[in-house]
Structures are given as C-alpha cells and as structure tokens.
C-alpha cells in the first residue's frame, strides 16, 4: 500500500525499523507516524470505543481529533497520527479510555 512512483513527489524513506503491534512485528520507516506505518501494513483498526466497543481508526491525521489514540510503550491515549514510530516501539490497540496509572 505504499506509493512506488509518483508524478510530482519523491518520497525519501528513512531507515527501515521494526516495531510491534499487538505483539506482531511490523516494518516501518523512520520519520513516519505510527498511524501511517500501521496503515501501510494494512492495519486500520487502532482502538475500540468506550461503551459499544466499536472499531476506531484515525480521522484527521494531524492531531486534532484523537480518534487514533493507542497505547504506546504502555502509555494510553497517544495520538498515533502525530507520534513518530521508533525502533522496538510497543504499540497496542486501545480499548476505551485506556489505563492511565
């Protein structure tokens, strides 16, 4: 799902890194957000809603709406659309509000 050739843009990819999504290893490139890396790997469901447990994906992708909140390295409510992915990062689907303590 990555763009290979583009008539206007040249994508300069960063170094290839690995991170974990719900225990599964995923490849990504340095300099991209967690949400972008997950989307490139075909992962669209990032969380479950608080009461009805409905699937949640990102909506705005620029840090406004918080629909993309996930648990990152144990910390809940991280906006994955504006947080850069890092080597070895542990990313988990967020259920509801997430544990803050």
């Amino acid at each position, binding site marked *: *799902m990555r763009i290979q050739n583009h008539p*206007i843009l040249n994508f300069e990819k960063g170094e290839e890194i690995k991170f974990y999504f719900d225990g599964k290893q995923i490849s990504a490139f340095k300099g991209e957000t967690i949400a972008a890396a997950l989307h490139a790997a075909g992962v669209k469901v990032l969380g479950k809603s608080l009461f009805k447990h409905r*699937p949640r994906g990102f909506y*705005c*992708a620029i840090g406004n709406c918080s629909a993309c909140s996930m648990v990152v390295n144990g910390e809940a409510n991280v906006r994955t*659309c504006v947080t850069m992915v890092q080597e070895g990062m542990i990313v988990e689907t967020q259920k509801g509000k997430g544990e803050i303590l």
Partner: protein
Amino acid sequence: MKHVDIAVIGGGPAGLCAAISGASSGAKVLLMDRSEKLGGQLIKQTHMFFGSEKQYASVRGFDIADILLDKLNEYKDNIEIMNNTNVLGLYEDGVITIERNEKYEKIKPKSIVVATGASEKVLAFPNNDLPGIYGAGAVQTLMNVYGVKPGKRVLMVGAGNIGLIVSYQLMQAGVEIAAIIDASPTIGGYLVHASKIRRMGVPILTSHTVKEAIGRDCLESAVIWKLDENWNPIDGTEQEIETDVMCISVGLSPLSELLQQAECKMKYIPELGGQTVLRNENYETSVEGIYVAGDVSGVEEASSAMVEGYLAGLCAAQKIGFKHKNYNELKEDYIKQLESLRSGPIGHHIRSGIEKVMGV
C-alpha cells in the same frame, strides 16, 4: 517566564507569513508549531496555487512552504522557532503556556498572532465512525507526506476545492475514485478542478449524499442516494458503491479554542466555518494585542491566509512600537490583495461572512 515581542502560534501559511512580517518590522518573534516540520498543511499540497504572483500563483503548495521557510531564514536573528511545541493555554493576562520536550513552560509576549488553522468537519450518517472513513485532508497527509495509499477505491464526499483536489491527487497516487458526491445541486469548488478530474472518467454526482456506510471492522461499501430540490433524500434512488475508503470533505471549522480561552469575542458565522473570532481590519481581536490570521480567522484559501499573516504580523509589530519602514505601503498592499482575492463571485460567501466578523 520567557519574554518575547511577538508570539506566533502555528507555523502554517498564515503563521509563517506573520513571523516574517513581524521580524522584518524589527520585533523579536517566537514561532511555535506542534509539528516537527513547519509549513502546516502546505507540505501536502502538490497542486499549483491560484491567485497572483504575490501569492505564489502557479507554484505548488509544498514548494511555497520552502519559499516561506527561506524567507523566514533571512530574519533568523529575529525569529526563534519552537517546533514540536503544543500551546496549551492562552490566559487573560496574556501568558501563554506550552508543553515542549515533555516540559511545561510559560511565555509572556507583548503581542500574539494566533494562526492555528482549522479542523475537518464530520458528516452524520449511520456507521460514520468505521475505520476507512477519513477526513479528506487526513488522506492527503497519508499519501502526500508519508507515501502511503489510503486504500483501493475511494468515495469522495464533497465537491468543494478540497474534495476535487484530493480526488485528483489520489488518482496521481494510483488510487481509483468510485465517485465524487455532493449534497449541493452544484459543484462548490473551482470548475477547472472539477473538469480535470471529470475528464479522467470520475463521475461527479451533485444532489447526492451518503445514506449509510456498511462494514464490520472497516468500511466495505457505502449506500448513497439522491436529494430533491429541498435537500430531502428520494426513496428508491439508493446505490451501493463498493469502497474501502470514504473521504469526508464537507468543510472546515476554525481551531479557535485558544481564542475562546483568552475570552476573545466570538460569533457563529457559517460562511466562515462556524465559531469565528471577531476582529478589526488589522486582524486584532476584541482582546487588545491578540491578532489572528489564516483559517482560524475564517476558513478560506491558503493564498489569503498568507496575506492575512503578513498583515497581522505587520500590525502586531506596529502595535508594540516596531513600525516597519514601509508600514503604510505594505499595509495598503496587503489589504488590496485580500480585497482582490475575495472580489469575484466565488468570494461572495467570504465577503458576507467577513461583514459579520468586523466590528471590535
């Protein structure tokens, strides 16, 4: 507490121009942006801009970001840049609180330009929360900044400029567009944008809206239906469209939370995107020393956001004793540029919105 002459909040087209303008007037400017990279939404605009040479017409948006950053660099002695910085609060005593590197800091500027931009609206229909239903701007970020395709087949909801431009850009990225629909009986965006996507074979269906989205964990298809002349859906006109990405492009609303915290007078002005701050012709709000520029002062095109930024930065500097040596000529020119950008038939709704915003 850190002291500066002018604090500019937001490093998009309006904020960059406000910082350049304030610094070129001789003021010390602090430019803050939540992202790593300055430029705001310019960095994902791959199309050529409209307007005149003064607003960089015919140059692609991401190249305009680089032009503005070079200009910013010319005044680097007068500009401090804080990226990855979240502005948390704007208090009644003029103090700004920020979070940067996981630290909480306070700033006391003599004047402030708020250029926080706007956020994408949502549309109400059953299952509108399914993953795969994204703001059109979100999809633009995903594909043009990160090089990731949003999916295989897109239904674009909204035939304004953003909907039309993003559809075209999706096709450039190799993604199929099932259709562009809009509830309005006519296309809202520039017709040249509509024609260039239509001649790629993409249907544009006016007087159509979404009935419902269908899917278990993610969007799998969408049902659209036709609207009558009173915008009521017509039973029996339903069509199910196979799509894994629905882009919502039904307008933006100003990101005005900071202005509301500072108790700037606001008004609901639909023509400008919703809750909009009142201001005078210098782009100063009802709170002395707080200026606005760009989409937060009323949702419009990036071309006018840049001119508003130049004007607000110029006035914010003059207010605190840094009068640009060509203050009068520059101010007159910026006002003229804005008038001409808004003077045609397409600027009608902006003009009627601005009439309601003036008067503090």
